[in-house]
């Protein structure tokens, strides 16, 4: 839904990091995107490519690692994947839960030439 803002912000952060650490070439940027983050990886790539134009990342590759959307059931305490179970606890059928992971949108790592 808001891939463009996140792409622009992520690129800004990567460029800042590169400048601070004297990195002048980046082969691959690895992003970590949660299943529950409302970001669609395919759109993300398009937004990324558009936002990278005329920066040092223009020819870098983008790798997206998807992290699972897990939650803990508020009734029985079971940990389950929210997406695969459509938000319903497979143990007791409750919808009450706390999200443990899957909302993140992180810059995970950079692969740079030695």
């Amino acid at each position, binding site marked *: *839904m*808001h891939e*463009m*803002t*996140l792409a622009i*912000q*992520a690129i*800004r*952060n990567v460029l800042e*990091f590169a400048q601070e*650490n004297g*990195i002048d070439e980046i*082969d*691959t940027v690895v992003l*970590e995107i949660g299943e529950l983050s*409302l970001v669609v990886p395919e759109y993300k790539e398009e937004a990324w490519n558009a936002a990278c134009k005329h920066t040092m990342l223009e020819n870098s590759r983008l790798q997206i690692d998807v992290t699972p959307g897990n939650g803990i059931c508020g009734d029985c305490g079971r940990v389950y994947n929210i997406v695969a179970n459509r938000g319903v606890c497979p143990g007791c059928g409750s*919808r*009450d839960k706390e999200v443990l992971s899957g909302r*993140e*949108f*992180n*810059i*995970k*790592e*950079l*692969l*740079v*030439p*030695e």
Partner: protein
Amino acid sequence: MLRTIEIKQSVFESNDRVADALRAELRARGLFLLNLMSSPGSGKTSTLVKTIAALKDELRIGVMEADIDSDVDAHTVEKAGAKAIQLHTGGMCHLTADMTRQGLEALGTEDVDLAILENVGNLVCPAEFDTGASKNAMILSVPEGHDKPLKYPLMFEVCDVMVINKIDVLPYFDFDLDLVREYALRRNPKIEIIPISAKTGEGIDRWCDWLRREVKSWKEG
């Protein structure tokens, strides 16, 4: 050969940092900023018009209207007696803290006690981005249905107050006021719930009392 540099930095946190800095600044200046969110057509602008009419003699109000591309709302709000500007988001589905700061600068806040940011009409994206506001409010209108807290949980989690608008049409809709309360409180036990009708004026007093109280306690720090 490639070398891996671990970063592990949250991109949301970059916005959060700008938002926290803005909030601290607003606190120091005693300027209260309300981030008002809702679906399109829930009655944000008509609620604002009623709110301005009720409060304009005691509080100086400034409104930032976020819209993809029009200035209809800013004119309406200005006529009601508040200072207003239109923020064109250029297609963005939400406002970031950076955009909010720029909006406040464009509005000019030296003569404002209560600034209101009318966010883009959307229950998903605006909830993800902290604008740096003092408090978050959302309007849910009766025709939208009482199941919205189940469908858009994050919106209800981040809001301090939920205004239920258009209660004058309750008899014509299968909207269950008790159920919506239950669903919203399940997502957020601290959320304040205020039913109103921007059309008849019912409940506007309670809503304005909430605003008065929050502006006052923000100023007192």
